[in-house]
Each structure stands twice: as C-alpha cells, then as structure tokens.
C-alpha cells in the first residue's frame, strides 16, 4: 500500500495554514490605566515587534485615557463626558502606579529611577512602537461611554477606532494573546 506523499503533505499544509494562532502576531488588550501596566504593555509590544512579530494593541476602558493628547482641546462634550475628562488622566504621562503610588510619590520615584537608569519612558516606547508599525486600536464603546473623541487622541502613525470583533479577529489568528 502506498500513499501519495505529495498530496498528503499538501493536505497537511493546508490544514496547518488554517489553524487559529498560526500567524506570527501578538494581540494585546490594554484595559488597565496604570503606569506600570502600560510600561509592561509597551515594552512587550516593542520587544515583539523587534522580534519580527506583527503587533496589535487594543486599548479599552481605563487604557483609553492613556491615548489622550495632553495638548488637544475638544469641545462639545456632554456633562458626563466633561466629568470623565476631568477625572481621568489626561494622557500617558499622567498615569500612576497600580501599587505604592503613595499619593504620587511612588510614581515620581519610579520615573526618577527610570530616567537615572536610562530605561525607556512611555514617550520613547510609543515613538519606537510607531516606527515598528505597532497598530493601535481604540475601543469605540469605551470612548463613547467616557465621552472621549477621536480628535483628542494622540497623533500616532497607525491608530484606529474599532469594536470587539476587530480585536477578536486579530486575536484569533495571533500566536500570542495578552490581556493587561
């Protein structure tokens, strides 16, 4: 009994190509609004991009606040939107540590340490991420709930608003999926 080896290989190849998680891609959901978690997310994202992976980030909930541009003003917000706007950090440089924030002292100390040891700041990491074609999606529902508008988001090479299905489509074909 003999098998057609070429055909068998072609069949297996077709199956493997369709497997979920087949693509050399990393999808990460960033729900948290803490500085330490955003640092980890961006270091992982840029590291993965440097290792040749396609990287897709999906900012939702508290994470969306990190994408606010500190210098952009937006009009036409509802009262709730304005309240959220005041209570949420205005951009990534206003994020605080998830622990040991100590009224802001912990965050300041960490930032000082990072500067001293030449650890890349969030600003630098976003720059590098942009250069490495890391894609950033912003959750439309979070923006809607918290009254944020696309016009107040940072200028970034590849930033788009989307919903959960977009994120899931990317996640399904990714080799790595993270949630922070």
């Amino acid at each position, binding site marked *: 009994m003999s098998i057609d080896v070429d055909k068998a290989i072609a069949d297996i190849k077709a199956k493997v190509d369709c497997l979920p998680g087949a693509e050399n891609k990393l999808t990460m959901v960033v729900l948290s609004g803490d500085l330490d978690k955003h640092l980890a997310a961006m270091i992982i994202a840029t*590291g993965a991009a*440097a*290792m040749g992976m396609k990287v897709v980030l999906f900012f939702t909930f508290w994470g969306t606040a990190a994408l606010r541009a500190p210098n952009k003003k937006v009009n036409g917000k509802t009262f709730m939107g304005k309240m959220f706007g005041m209570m949420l950090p205005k951009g990534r440089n206003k994020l605080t540590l998830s622990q040991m924030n100590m009224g802001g002292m912990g965050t300041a100390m960490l930032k000082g340490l990072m500067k001293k040891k030449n650890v890349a700041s969030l600003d630098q990491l976003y720059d590098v991420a942009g250069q490495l074609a890391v894609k950033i999606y912003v959750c439309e529902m979070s923006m809607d709930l918290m009254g944020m508008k696309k016009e107040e988001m940072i200028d970034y090479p590849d930033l788009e608003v989307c919903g959960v299905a977009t994120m899931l489509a990317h996640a399904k074909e990714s080799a790595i999926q993270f949630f922070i």
Partner: protein
Amino acid sequence: MADYAVAKTLDYKGLACPMPVVKISQQIGTVAVGEVIEVHTTDPGSLADFPAWAKTMGHAILETKQEPGLIKIFVKRQK
C-alpha cells in the same frame, strides 16, 4: 578563537530593555548577509535577549564576551 572579521561595531551602552533588541533588529539590515556586528552593551538582560532574538529572527550569536562593566556580543547576519 576569533576567525571572523567584524564589519561594524555598535554602541548600545547605557540602553536598557527593550532598546538593545529593538535597535539590533533595526540595524541588522545595515550589514550584508554573512557579516558580523559587534554590539557593546551594559544591559545584563541582553545576555539572554540577544540569543532569543537571533533564534527567532534566523541570525547567529557567534560569541559573547563579558568584561567588567561591558558586554560584547557578536551577531552574524544570516539572512
């Protein structure tokens, strides 16, 4: 021991994670396939990161030299 020629030396001293790996991924293309880059770094994480990066990207780490306060990594571009 060293029977290869270094095409380029890159100074990554003072850079911390993830920058050394990010930079080598951006700069590996500045030498021809088969050429060797000598990287100088002070980041201890690079000792593990460079081999991991090389394995994933299909390049080779020929040698790692540790001197006081300095790590030298010899990266060969293989594709």
